[in-house]
């Protein structure tokens, strides 16, 4: 039975939702706005909302001073590559956990997730040493691997919850129809899990794109992604707010656009398959 919702209540809910939405969006909005101001206007008190001289000067300077495209390309390779590798490893792992669970499957899942609770800086030293040892410092391949490993627990968890929703009968039918393990995963499980895999991919591209700790610590120049690009404009002294904002806007634009067009999948991804 549909619950009757009063108009007043609807208005209240809508107002609260908009308020929260605007509050969350405000920093992004302010960053974008600041990127079109001059440095002096950027730190003006009281803050300027619309009554300033719109300028593209910051973007020109930022592009002149550093090569945006190179950072962007690094970000694309690292975020895309780590997600792709992660999916490749996680699909079979999640398959086995979802469809042939053992007594310890639940424990393993929790243990995997618990690695995400570890402060990243705790393993900075050993990872740095490994990177030095294998000549991986400031390489795209090294960063891709690290970020893939960092996000792997999330990927496995997400895929696991999606796979659990797939009726096991259908996989058994595939087995009866003569499919081996490879065919079962390739032709039956994966196509059926495409929506789930898509939201997993999206969320992990975003996580990898925004990852700053490892990218800042393990890269210098050649493999530096957009996070490093932004960081290079963050200076304790001097007037760099407008330029920093321009760099930030450029760095988040691709992911913002991607997120905008895939809201539905993202919501499913973020709720770990709880919303059907």
């Amino acid at each position, binding site marked *: 039975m549909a619950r009757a919702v009063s108009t007043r209540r609807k208005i209240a809910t809508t107002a609260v939702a908009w308020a929260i939405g605007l509050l969350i969006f405000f920093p992004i909005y302010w960053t974008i706005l600041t990127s079109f101001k001059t440095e002096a206007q950027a730190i003006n008190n009281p803050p300027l909302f619309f009554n300033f001289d719109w300028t593209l000067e910051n973007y020109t300077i930022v592009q002149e001073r550093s090569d945006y495209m190179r950072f962007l390309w690094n970000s694309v390779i690292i975020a895309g590559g780590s997600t792709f590798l992660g999916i490749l490893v996680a699909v079979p792992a999640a398959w086995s956990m979802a469809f042939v669970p053992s007594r310890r499957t639940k424990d393993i899942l929790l243990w995997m997730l618990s690695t995400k609770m570890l402060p990243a800086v705790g393993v900075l030293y050993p990872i740095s040493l490994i990177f030095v040892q294998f000549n991986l410092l400031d390489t795209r391949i090294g960063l891709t691997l690290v970020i893939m490993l960092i996000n792997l627990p999330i990927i496995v968890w997400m895929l696991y919850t999606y796979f659990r929703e797939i009726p096991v*009968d259908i996989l058994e*039918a595939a087995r009866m129809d003569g499919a081996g393990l490879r065919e079962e995963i390739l032709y039956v499980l994966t196509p059926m899990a495409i929506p789930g895999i898509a939201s997993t991919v999206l969320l992990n591209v975003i996580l990898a794109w925004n990852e700053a700790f490892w990218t800042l610590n393990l890269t210098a120049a050649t493999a530096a992604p957009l996070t490093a690009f932004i960081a290079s404009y963050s200076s304790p002294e001097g007037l760099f707010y407008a330029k920093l904002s321009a760099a930030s806007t450029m760095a988040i634009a691709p992911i913002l656009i991607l997120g905008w067009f895939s809201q539905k999948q993202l919501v499913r991804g973020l709720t770990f398959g709880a919303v059907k």
Partner: protein
Amino acid sequence: MGRITLDKVGKSFGEVEVIPPLDLTIEDGEFVVFVGPSGCGKSTLLRLIAGLEDVTGGEIRIDGKDATSVPPAKRGLAMVFQSYALYPHMSVRKNIAFPLRMAKMSAAEQDRRVKAAAEVLNLTDYLDRRPGQLSGGQRQRVAIGRAIVREPAAFLFDEPLSNLDAALRVGMRLEISELHNRLKTTMIYVTHDQVEAMTMADKIVVLRAGHIEQVGSPLELYRAPRNLFVAGFIGSPKMNLIGAEIAARHDATTIGIRPEHLAVSGESGALHGRVGVSEHLGSDTFFHVTCDGVADPVTVRVGGEVDLHYGDTVWLTPDPDHLHRFDHEGLRIA
């Protein structure tokens, strides 16, 4: 060919023995029905034959070859699931062709076989639809189509009709029987519905708690149930089971009389009782009669329309040729 032999096959889940070791032979071309109440192990037994579950002990042979540790994909059996288990992302055509694709059959041959199967099952107009766009009965046909294209050694049906409504169920029951007559391939069919078992089977295997209670043709089970369980399970409405003094008169602990083997008289007979609720089906009428000295109401079948009313006094007499006698262990006395 599809002769399936189970040799001391058993299954345990951890400590729990679901199926104690049992022997069973299913002849080539036979239509065998596993029937029993829910939880009797009939589906598990089917899944052991399919290879979807591993046996705990014993040997399964298909056409004389040991198949115990052969994976399901290589056993050459086809299965129809209760939930149909169609591939939702594939068209009907691709669903039916899937086993052929897995067998790496040529595209032309795949096409030919899918068309032939679709024709048999009246699915030709639906080949390009997705399972989600089909009705329950059509989905069931697709599932059967996917099973027949590969020409398997045997078909396994796991309660295939229980998700269909009553009218459709009767129709599909006939279609499956028809299919069996046409293909002459071994079929193993699991159901909890004894009507399906009686109407379709060449051979019925009655299971209870993982044990085989009796194996036989539908009429053998109907005429000579081996024990009280089979007597009560096979036949609709149920056989009347009467104990105490009345049974003692026949030198038995319990006697069984089917509703159709009781004569009704207004004047005299073996059991005296009062007519209770009656069910008129047109061709038959079932009366539930409360008899003196009998705990449960006795069901009586009377052909056509009979002038008996609620509260009337009647006499019932069992047909001595169709009286089943059981001893204190519930076993049939010959």
